[in-house]
């Protein structure tokens, strides 16, 4: 009894302490993260108080998978075709160049480390490198939108920044989904021919498309469901789609990205769906951080060597990717070589990818991936706001503030 009460006391004090520290950071530096939730998760978990033992952490898997699917679906809703069609071609070119360059640089560096420094076999090195390169490529659309809204720059670059954050996420999730299909884990039932890598990729895509079409039919016309029932229907859709992917050892985030993309482009209820997903994004993100904290058991090698190296690689890839896209691909009027500085915030998708990786590859260094990701989330969420602010200020004077103006800086953000 005393142990449990001590655990509760440790957690309460730990939470309040973490909250006060990060609240100061929030006030002083505009920090928008939720690192206190990693702390409380870690305190609740088996490594500290054991109030949540390893089995109970595993029991939370359905909630985690729901959260993974939730974030994937939200990402899918960003890509509404009628608004995407209005985006300037130069913006798209810069955003894709930035995402692909960042991913490629991070992938090359990570492959070199895992293959030649650590000595891992090629398939292992590829899976680890692609996963971590995907995490490195991610940047938080929410954090970027918040800053762009706050700064109201006259420059034409901020909409590119917002688009780049979304394309980063798209490239990262697609690469991660692909690597899970190509290096597929798990056996099929006896008597069934194991699908090839290409077939698994098609199955992954097909599950997403089938889910999208079925739930388009299931949700029906706009106004048909009240908020509570829409929540249940969406939660059900996400659980089914994520559950199918989880069952097949594929990526629920990729599947629900397709689901979200289809729902937002096919139904008249797309505004309700997007609004509901956005309103629940922060609790879902924080729940993931909490779970990640509880599941986190860092090894000393990960903490001292690989994770700091990953942080360094992400910074370099981000800056070089930004320089290539903003300095060389962009036309003169959109030139911004420091683009990468505005995209440092990592956000919830990174944690989601790391947790998803741990579900599929429990024997392939999941602790390392989670440690590197959490360290990045904690560090970048502290510095990202300042760096992005400096970048936006470098673009020129702010627009005058107009009372009651609707923020709609890019066609993509206009989805909201």
């Amino acid at each position, binding site marked *: 009894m005393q142990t449990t009460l001590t655990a509760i006391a440790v957690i309460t004090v730990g939470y309040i302490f973490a909250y006060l520290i990060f609240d100061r950071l929030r006030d002083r530096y505009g920090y928008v993260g939720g690192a206190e939730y990693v702390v409380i998760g870690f305190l609740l978990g088996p490594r500290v108080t054991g109030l949540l033992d390893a089995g109970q952490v595993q029991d939370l898997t*359905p909630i985690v998978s729901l959260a993974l699917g939730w974030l994937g679906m939200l990402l899918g809703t960003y890509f509404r075709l009628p608004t995407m069609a209005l985006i300037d071609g130069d913006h798209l070119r810069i955003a894709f160049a930035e995402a692909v360059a960042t991913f490629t640089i991070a992938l090359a560096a990570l492959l070199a480390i895992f293959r030649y420094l650590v000595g891992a076999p090629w398939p292992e090195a590829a899976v680890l490198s692609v996963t971590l390169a995907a995490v490195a490529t991610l940047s938080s659309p929410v954090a970027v939108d918040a800053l762009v809204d706050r700064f109201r720059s006259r420059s034409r670059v901020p909409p590119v920044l917002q688009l780049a954050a979304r394309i980063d996420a798209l490239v990262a999730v697609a690469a991660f989904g692909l690597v899970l299909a190509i290096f597929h884990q*798990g056996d099929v039932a006896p008597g069934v021919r194991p699908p090839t890598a290409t077939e698994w990729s098609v199955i992954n895509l097909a599950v997403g498309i089938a889910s999208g079409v079925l739930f388009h039919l299931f949700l029906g016309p706009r106004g048909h469901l009240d*908020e509570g029932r829409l929540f*249940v229907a969406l939660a059900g859709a996400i659980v*089914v789609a*994520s559950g199918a992917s989880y069952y*097949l050892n594929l990526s629920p985030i990729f599947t629900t990205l397709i689901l979200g993309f289809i729902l937002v482009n096919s139904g008249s209820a797309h505004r309700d769906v997007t609004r509901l997903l956005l309103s629940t994004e922060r609790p879902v993100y924080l729940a993931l951080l909490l779970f990640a904290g509880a599941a986190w058991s860092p090894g000393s090698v990960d903490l001292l060597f690989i994770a700091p190296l990953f942080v360094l690689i992400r910074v370099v890839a981000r800056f070089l990717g930004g320089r290539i896209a903003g300095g060389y691909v962009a036309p003169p009027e959109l030139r911004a070589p420091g683009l990468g500085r505005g995209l440092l915030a990592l956000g919830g998708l990174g944690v989601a990818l790391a947790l998803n990786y741990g579900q599929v590859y429990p024997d392939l260094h999941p602790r390392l991936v989670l440690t590197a990701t959490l360290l990045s989330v904690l560090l970048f969420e502290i510095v990202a706001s300042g760096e992005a602010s400096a970048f936006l200020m470098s673009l020129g004077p702010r627009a005058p503030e107009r009372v009651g103006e609707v923020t709609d800086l890019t066609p993509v953000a206009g989805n909201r």
Partner: protein
Amino acid sequence: MIRRLVVLALLVGGALLLEPLRVPTEGVIAPRSLFLFGILLLTADTFGALAHDLGFPRLVGYLVAGLGLGPSVLDIVPPGVLQDLSMMKQLAVGLIALLAGAELRINDLVTRYRAILWILALQTAVVLLGLTVLTLILRPWVPFLAGLEVASLLFVAFLFAATLTVNSPMVTLGLLTETGADGPLAKTTLGVVLVADVVVILIFTVAFSLAQASLGGATAGALDTLFRLLREVVGSILAGCLVGGVLTLYLRFVRRELVLFAVVLVFATAAAAQALHFELLLSLLVAGFLVENVAPVRAEPLVDVLHVMAVPVFVVFFAMAGADLRLQAFMALWPVILAVALTRAGLIYAGTRAGARLGEAEPVVTRYAWTGLVSQAGVALGLATVVADRLPRLGLAMHTVIVGIIAFNESVGPILFRYGLDRAGEIRVR
């Protein structure tokens, strides 16, 4: 509606197609549990809408969906999956308890305490006595009474009656949330059901100890058992005070991310309840009550959040409760089950009317309060499981009969209560 049913059928078909692509694995959470949980959610929501269109409470639709997909009928959601997802049910119970506590206003209790106490006392006494006598009368047809001596017979019948005295706070709260009902009937019924939850558990404890002692299982331990269960109740109330304190501090100083905080609080309390042996439902009920009525903070933000979460939470709870029902238990002994269930409803009617009259309740309470006391669900199932686990000689047979009666009460109770609320003119949301 037909479109949604077709989609559900296609989803189930898709599940069958995907099945060979993975060898079933044994894990803490089997991967397919999640997928089937999603299908259960969507089916429950669809059947809830169907029930609503037919004029029944949505809860009945959720239960029917769970029953249909569960082990009793189609076995699409097998027992192992329900076991895997028990944490979701625990979360639902905890959140509903918190909401139930916060819905209890001290002013309502003070103004209605006479009616609540009289209804509770007479309803409990009449049902206990009546069902004990009925069980003795039905002895030749009741399988678990065969071959018992007189003393054992009496105490086992008393235990059986005590288990059937339990109401369902979950159904009451679920229906009040669904219908937005507010008025004398809604407030009195909620008060009776929540106070009864504590009283009936104490009566069950006494009955269980007596039955166990009479069967020669643990004569010396009977008082110990009583003491231990009393300690659990007191411990639950103290734990509730502690959780209420934490909630108050959070609402006073932090007041952010209330959805997440409520979820974490429930899981943390559940873990502590398991370690320290107290009741999750009772402790969170007390916590919610204290925050709403005693704490120097505004509880509205928390209550609003809990109301928003109520719909999905009820879908999860009742769909899983439906899947837990065993139709076979009902089919095997349906004459006994029907006789006991109908007599129970009659006894509740008589006891409640008499109690309401003595408590000088409003006429609408006197007429319809009984409709809210027929339902049985999670608490009753929990007590039935205690009987099955700890009285091996006859517990399993008694469990079968009780589960059959609960299935009946769980299906009919919400319909009756909605009817009562409707007749009382207290339904706000149609």
